[in-house]
Structure formats: structure tokens, C-alpha cells
């Protein structure tokens, strides 16, 4: 089923989406005012990072590629920003754009090789690439080895904001999340996003329409990796220490879970909701201690087996069902009243 991009249905859907996003953002901005607990603030910050990473996964998925490599460029971002700040003496704010450029160039170079493989091969290559990055930073003495780097400075203060509390970090990561959402949304609603969706449906068919699947997928890879680097840049200065182990292969698998759990067809909201749930649920499962991974596994299987649309997909399905039900009820009432009038 192909909908025209300018059909009224999509415009109204978009308007609802923007209203929903605005409400969510206002709620998110107000959150630290009502939360005292620092640990919950920390979890919220980690959920925001997870949401950015999940969105990079969704971006590649929208072009029909499944990546397990989100953690790789997350690590690239964290390490290059750390080096730029600690060794080159740059300020945090100057390091961000440089880090993004470094990540984009690296993504272009590696992506040019990786994207040539589709399907299963791409999944495995990206998974192995994460291992390469982790091993590379662990083996190089300059990058701290397995012990990592500690004592990374906080972001430089702007005015009165000196990033001493979690609340300030929370607003910073929220701003980054917002930036990612705006950029990604612009990409999805442009010609590029439509090309990605066409490629996802069929790369060969898209090729016959003059869309070069290789180039567009490479673009998705570069854009996604750059956003992941932004998250990594924040993480390094938030945690103030980085170790290679923090970027291992299983992180990327968690990132996928965010997207699957939230709803695969919701490229922006899906990973955000999924990250929020996947950050908080295992924390509250901590009380069952060693059974936690088993319960997480069962929950994951349950979602995949019985709610394959994810959280948002299920809600939307129910909503569509109830809307259809209401409409048919309304219609039947209308026809009944008509019949009554006639009879």
C-alpha cells in the first residue's frame, strides 16, 4: 500500500504527531523539576542516550539494513571527543562539531565497504566492526587500553550553567535528542526518506526508478553514525570516564531491542519509548536479582511473539480497531435512524 506524500491523511497524521511530540517534550522538560532522586535522573539521561542510538538503528532499518554497529560510532564519538578535549585542549563545545566530522568521515570510509553487503552479511559485519573498534581502543596505549580513560572534564560552563548537577546534564542530552529528532524528521520527510522507504520495499525496483540503493544506504549509514557519535560525545563528558568494555557488542543488541520494543515502524518515537522502557524495567527487576536476565528474556520474547508491532504498533492497532468499531457503530445507527425516518 503506497500513500502519496501529500495526501490529507498524512498531513493530519503529521499534525497529530507534532502535537504529541510537543506534549512529550514539555513533559520531559518539566520532569527534573518533580524528580528529586539523582539515580532516576541518571536513568532518564541514559534513556535519552539510548533513544538517540535507537533512532540511528531505525534510520538504517528504514533503508532496509539491519545494523548491530550503533555502539561502534558511539565509541568513536566518545573517544575522539575525549582526545580532543584532554590532549588537544579544545573546549567541549568546539570538540562536538569536530567529533561529528571525524565520525562522518570514518562512517563514509567504512560504510563504503560495509553497505555493499546487504542482508545477513551486513548484520554480521557491523557486529564485528564493533568488536574491531573495542579491540582497537583497548590495544592502543594512547587511548588508555582496557583500563580506559578517567578524569574527563565536564562540559565548559556557559554563563551560570556549569554542569555540576544531573539536571543540567539532563537538559543538555534532551537538547541533543531534540536536535537528532529534528534532523532525522527532516530527512524522513524529504525525498531522501522516501527513497529509503522505496529501497526497503525492494532495492531492485528502487534502482529501476533511478534511486541508487548503494548511495542512499551509505547516506543513511553516515547520518546514523554521526548521530551515534553525538551521543558518545555527550556520554564521555557525562560519565567522565570511558572504558572499552562499555561499548561492547551487547550494547548494540540492546539498541536494537529499543527499536523493536517501541515499534519498528515508528522511526523516531519507537526507539524513544523502547529506550525508556528498557532502561527502567530491568532496574525495577533488580529485586529478583539473578532471575533478572531470564525475566527480561521472557518479556522480550513475549513482545516479539505476541506484539510484533511493538508498544506503539499495538496501541495504534487497538486505536484503529476501536476507531473502526466506532465508525461502524455510528454508520449502523445512522442507517437505523434513516430507516426509522423512512418507515
Amino acid at each position: 500500500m503506497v500513500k502519496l506524500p501529500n495526501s490529507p491523511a498524512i498531513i493530519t497524521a503529521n499534525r497529530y504527531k507534532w502535537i504529541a511530540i510537543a506534549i512529550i517534550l514539555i513533559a520531559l522538560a518539566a520532569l527534573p523539576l518533580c524528580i528529586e532522586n539523582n539515580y532516576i535522573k541518571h536513568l532518564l539521561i541514559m534513556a535519552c542516550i539510548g533513544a538517540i542510538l535507537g533512532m540511528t538503528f531505525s534510520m538504517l532499518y528504514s533503508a532496509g539494513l539491519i545494523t548491530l554497529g550503533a555502539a561502534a560510532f558511539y565509541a568513536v564519538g566518545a573517544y575522539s571527543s575525549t582526545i580532543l578535549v584532554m590532549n588537544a585542549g579544545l573546549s567541549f563545545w568546539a570538540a562536538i562539531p569536530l567529533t561529528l566530522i571525524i565520525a562522518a568521515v570514518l562512517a563514509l570510509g567504512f560504510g563504503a565497504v560495509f553497505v555493499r553487503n546487504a542482508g545477513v552479511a551486513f548484520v554480521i559485519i557491523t557486529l564485528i566492526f564493533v568488536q574491531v573498534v573495542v579491540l582497537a581502543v583497548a590495544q592502543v596505549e594512547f587511548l588508555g587500553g582496557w583500563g580506559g580513560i578517567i578524569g574527563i572534564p565536564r562540559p565548559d560552563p556557559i554563563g551560570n550553567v556549569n554542569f555540576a548537577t544531573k539536571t543540567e546534564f539532563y537538559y543538555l542530552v534532551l537538547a541533543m535528542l531534540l536536535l537528532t529528532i529534528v534532523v532525522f524528521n527532516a530527512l524522513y520527510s524529504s525525498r531522501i526518506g522516501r527513497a529509503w522507504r522505496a529501497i526497503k520495499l525492494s532495492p531492485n525496483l528502487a534502482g529501476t526508478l533511478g534511486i541508487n540503493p548503494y548511495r542512499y544506504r551509505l547516506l543513511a549509514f553516515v547520518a546514523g553514525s554521526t548521530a551515534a557519535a553525538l551521543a558518545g560525545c555527550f556520554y564521555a563528558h557525562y560519565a567522565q570516564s570511558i572504558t572499552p568494555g562499555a561499548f561492547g557488542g551487547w550494547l548494540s543488541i540492546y539498541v536494537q531491542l529499543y527499536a523493536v520494543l517501541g515499534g519498528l515502524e515508528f522511526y523516531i518515537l519507537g526507539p524513544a519509548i523502547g529506550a525508556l522502557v528498557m532502561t527502567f524495567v530491568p532496574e525495577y527487576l533488580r529485586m529478583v536479582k539473578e532471575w533478572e536476565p531470564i525475566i527480561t528474556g521472557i518479556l522480550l520474547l513475549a513482545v516479539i511473539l505476541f506484539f510484533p508491532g511493538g508498544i506503539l504498533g499495538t496501541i495504534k492497532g487497538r486505536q484503529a480497531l476501536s476507531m473502526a468499531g466506532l465508525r461502524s457503530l455510528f454508520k449502523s445507527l445512522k442507517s437505523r435512524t434513516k430507516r426509522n425516518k423512512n418507515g
Partner: protein
Amino acid sequence: MTPGLFIQLIVNALTIGSIYILMVLGLDIILRGTKILNFAHGQLYALGAYIMFLFFQTLKLNFALSLVLSGFALALVGAISYLGVFAVLNRRFTVSTAFSYRLLLSAMASVGLMMMLQQGTLLCFGTQELGILSPFTQILDVLDVRISLSRIVIIFLSVAICLMLYLLMYRTPFGRLLRAVSYDPEAVTLQGVNTFWIFVACFALGSGLAGLAGGIIAPLFSITPSMGQNIIFITFLVLLVGGIGSYRGTIVGGLLIGLLLSFGFQFLGGIAELFVFMLVIVILIFRPGGLLGEAAE
């Protein structure tokens, strides 16, 4: 480098290479037959080693018997997990389901399975390292080179298993069905074959191979709950180098990676793994589908 060291390194390479080959053959049979990228494969391997420990060390069974039993036990675990998870998931897919969606959901389901298996193993057997006393303790002394017999046994057993697998796949009607299903399941269904049980058999066969690999390696290395996570990356790497869907490629890839890692660790230390991974990326630049495979669409 003395000739003695050289031969020893070759034997080490063949030992780990043959384990990789068994693992990748299992992974590849599952991937081609049922279109599942099985992340739980490493965990099945670890479970195989633990079950080998249970039969051989605790119940004091014969070595060969406990090996066969651990293979069968893992085939059973595989069949149960297929019936419980992937069969339910498969009912959701139709012929027109996008391949990427199908691949992603089954891979994620296998991640869920992996979490459960890993923690389950840990809860059953504890976190401490276990070891099996190898029944083959002799050291062979060939031309002044000292080689442990248990390594030779591992190589011999792996070759035997590969041969049996070859006979099963290419010389029996069952093997023909397995191969047919990996080419085109719909066509097989149209021939009046109930493909459901073939899929179950595919998954069980692959899991059984992982169990055998774990059982074979158990006397050589210590058994830990994390051994599955360590091997799964190398397994994926070998699958990629050899080419997905090429059994010959798997054997070439397994031996190549085994040799590279064995010699690399000796002469370069820990950085060897990094070089091997980089080399794989270089190979993929020139041969996107792996050494003997074909590039996917």
C-alpha cells in the same frame, strides 16, 4: 622459529579451526534452512560443554557416549526452543513478509533465548570454572615435537563429524530435503512435503552440532558461563569470511581464521585479534560475499 614450535602452532590452529568449523556449520545450517541468525548459538555451545561435564565427570559415563549424549541433548534443546519460539514467530510471516523484518525479528527472538539460556546455565551450574579431566593425557613425541593427544582427538573427531554431516546432507533423502528447504521452502511444500518438521530438524541439527563442538572442546579448555559469548563473534567472523551458504567456504574460513589466530597470538600477542578482524574487512572489500560465497542482494 623452530620446526617444533611451527608444528605445535599448526596443531593448535587445526584444533581451534575445527571447533570453529563445527560451530559455523551448525549456524549456517540453521541460517540457510530456517532463515534465523541464531545469536543463541554460542550459548548452546556453552551448554553442550556443561552437559558433557555432567555426563562425563559427574555421571562417569564413557567419553564417546557422553559426547553423543550431549549432542543429542542439545538437539533436543534446539528442537524445543524452535517449537516454543520460532515456530510461533513463523506463523506471523507470509511469503510477502520483507526479508529484513523477518531476519530482525527472528534474530531478536534468538537474543531473548540467549539471555534465558545464559542465565539459566549460570543458575544451574554456578559461576565457577569447571574442568573435565581429559581421558587422553598422553603426550605424543613425534620427531622431537611434543603434541598432546587430546588435541589430535579433537581434530579427528571434528573430521569424523564433518564426514558424517556430508554423508547425511548429500547421500540421504533427509539431507536432500534439508538442502531443498534451504533453496526454496515454498517449492518443497508444493511437492507435498510438510516443511514444518524439516525446519525443526534443521534447528535441532544445528544446535546438536553446537553441542558436539562444546562437548569436544570441554576437556581442553575450562568451562565457564561466558565461553558462549567469546566464541560467537569468531563464529560470525568465520561465517562471513567463508561466505554464507557455502560449506566449502566454511571449512576454508575456519582453517584460515584458526591459523591466523594461532600464529598471531604467538607472535603479536593480544593485538592479533584486531589484525584478523581488519583483514576480514579487507577481504570483504575485494570479495563482498566472502571467499567462496556469493554477494547477497
